[in-house]
């Protein structure tokens, strides 16, 4: 199966283009765009961890190491497409246009953080594993019914492929010919459980065979392979040719979330080795240098810009007004039920702010 589903790579670990066919498409402009986006989301990710450590946000799920997968795939979308992230895919969400401030608000426990900028079709992160796959199928199906050319992309990890929702989602998309791209980031660990203990198959892409849809396996740390293969899958979906499963083989350097310690379940030397050898950002940097496209001053400027943008978002997040107790009541239904209205009123009238729900007659 590994032979049947070889890993597609456009730019290798040393920054060399792997085939003549790719040379025309691996341009300086794209390389710079990818580099800039990856620096940006990596800066955000590092800040996320440090904010959590300082108690300024809650538990945080880092994606460092997976930047090529997230940037390459998100940049392949059209403006009106739908993006269904999991909790580790805010790198993709912000590349697609989500607000950094809102993403920080999300990690700070604020529902305002789920709201994407006007006109951006981004769902709140799927937290229970794999539930977002059927959602993406539904949205894609709805777009198809509305007669648009919009598609949906859904992000999930290797662990999610063990869930029934993964299989139901793929099957449903296949049967309905829904314009959806299933974008798997295989970082090889479901929290602490390695891929070998999650499944007997050597690849995730081969699971597409069961649903008679294309399965593509790519180097998830090669942003060019990610970008162009996602683009192909999107084009197929847009042309009415149905769904695609993409397996982007990658690695997360850090913990599953800031609530666990990866040294307890894997050899972190391996992470360090990958950081030096297969890092997605370093790879583009090597490509830029190999082709004489690298400009030290420009790169520093990109770093500085990213840091400034992230710091500004942190400042905005921290100066955001405190959570409004009305939020408890206002967004449960389109029109709050009389019971919610009454409970809200009780809250705001309670002496010393200690409401005892349900004490009044209707």
């Amino acid at each position, binding site marked *: 199966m590994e032979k049947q589903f070889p890993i597609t790579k456009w730019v290798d670990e040393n920054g060399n283009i792997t085939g003549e066919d790719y040379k025309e498409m691996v341009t300086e402009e794209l390389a710079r765009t990818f580099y800039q986006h990856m620096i940006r989301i990596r800066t955000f990710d590092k800040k996320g961890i440090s904010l959590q450590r300082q108690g300024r946000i809650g538990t945080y799920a880092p994606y460092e190491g997976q930047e090529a997968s997230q940037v390459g795939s998100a940049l392949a979308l059209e403006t009106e497409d739908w993006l269904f992230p999991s909790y580790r895919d805010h790198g993709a969400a912000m590349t697609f246009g989500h607000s950094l401030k809102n993403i920080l608000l999300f990690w700070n426990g604020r529902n305002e953080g789920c709201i994407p900028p006007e006109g951006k079709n981004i769902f*709140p992160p799927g937290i229970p594993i794999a539930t977002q796959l*059927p*959602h993406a199928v*539904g949205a894609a199906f709805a*777009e198809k019914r509305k007669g648009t050319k919009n598609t949906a992309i859904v992000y999930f990890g290797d662990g999610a492929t063990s869930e029934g929702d993964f299989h*139901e989602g793929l099957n*449903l998309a296949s049967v309905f010919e829904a314009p959806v791209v299933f974008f798997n980031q295989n970082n090889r660990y479901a929290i602490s459980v390695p891929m070998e203990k999650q499944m007997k198959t050597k690849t995730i892409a081969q699971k597409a065979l069961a649903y008679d849809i294309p399965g593509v396996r790519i180097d998830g740390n090669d942003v060019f392979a990610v970008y162009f293969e996602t683009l192909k899958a999107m084009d197929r979906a847009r042309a009415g040719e149905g769904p695609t499963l993409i397996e982007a083989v990658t690695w997360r350097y850090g913990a599953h979330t800031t609530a666990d310690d990866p040294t307890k379940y894997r050899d972190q030397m391996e992470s360090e080795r990958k950081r030096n050898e297969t890092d997605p950002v370093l790879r583009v940097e090597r490509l830029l240098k190999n082709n004489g496209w690298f400009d030290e001053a420009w790169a520093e400027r990109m770093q500085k810009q990213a840091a400034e943008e992230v710091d500004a978002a942190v400042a905005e997040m921290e100066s955001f007004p405190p959570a409004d107790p009305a939020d408890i009541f206002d967004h449960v239904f389109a029109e709050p039920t009389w019971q919610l209205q009454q409970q809200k009123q009780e809250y705001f009238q309670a002496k010393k702010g200690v409401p005892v729900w349900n004490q009044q007659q*209707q």
Partner: protein
Amino acid sequence: MARQISFADAINEAIKETMRNDENVILLGEDVAGGADLDHLGDEDAWGGVMGVTKGLVQEFGRDRILDTPIAEAGYVGAAVSAAATGMRPIAELMFNDFIGSCLDEVMNQGAKLRYMFGGHAKIPLVIRTMHGAGFRAAAQHSQTLYGMFTAIPGVKVVVPSTPADAKGLLISAIEDDDMVVFFEDKTLYNVKGEVPEGHYTIPIGKADIKRAGDDLTIVAIGKQVNTALAAAEQLAQKGIEAEVVDPRSLSPLDENTILKSVQKTSRLVIVDEANPRCNAATDISALVADKGFDYLDAPIKMVTAPHSPVPFSPALEDLYLPTPEKILAVVSELIDDESVVTI
């Protein structure tokens, strides 16, 4: 005499009315079209679901809008949640409410919470139609009454009609509602006929209905147990006891006012609910009246429910299991301290 149609046909009409008015309304579920769409077997004979409730819809609206799904409840309910969030107005049919275990996450964590988690920036105009109830000889895994579970989840509206006319008006309201509604259909009511207005009409969700007026005691009954309560009330009337039968029609939101007003008038309350007796609609209504209507009461609140055990497969045991008029009468005799009502 006005037009009489069955509970099943009333539901069918409600779906047709809304589908004609709004092309974003789609129906999806297992066997809802119910025909293989094969060359030698057109759609004319498509059976429309295991109980035939959706018969005729695929012929009128086509397979674009009446979608037979794979047996994948999490898959298609999940897809319906986001189809709703992205502009459709889907009706997802969960064949039996007992199957909710296969897709509860999509209902409880997704459909019910997306509006809230989106800070009000999303709407989920989704109806989950599902079949419930004992008395159909369908055994423990196809006979439960689980509306209490959904009533416990904020963000879900729960509707349980007892008559064909209510079923049609409430289902149209549910489909046109911008929130998720779980719509319970008692499978033993499908063939029951009643007067049903033609055309489009709505009954507001959250409004109880007094199915029989009376001054001596209140019987709050849910779903098909409204009929059991009405039968008991007729027998009580022969003894000169006038029971008021209140049908909440929706459990979330619950029309507390109508229930409390009735108890204020009658001072006695019996609740009839065929669900298991722990943490169900009956205990919820009982708690409501104990909390807000204690001073109205002249006697303890009584409940007539199933025992706290699974629905039996044996027909004899299943009959024993369900509330009956006789059980209601036995409870009433205690309430009014008159044993003679038991032996009417």
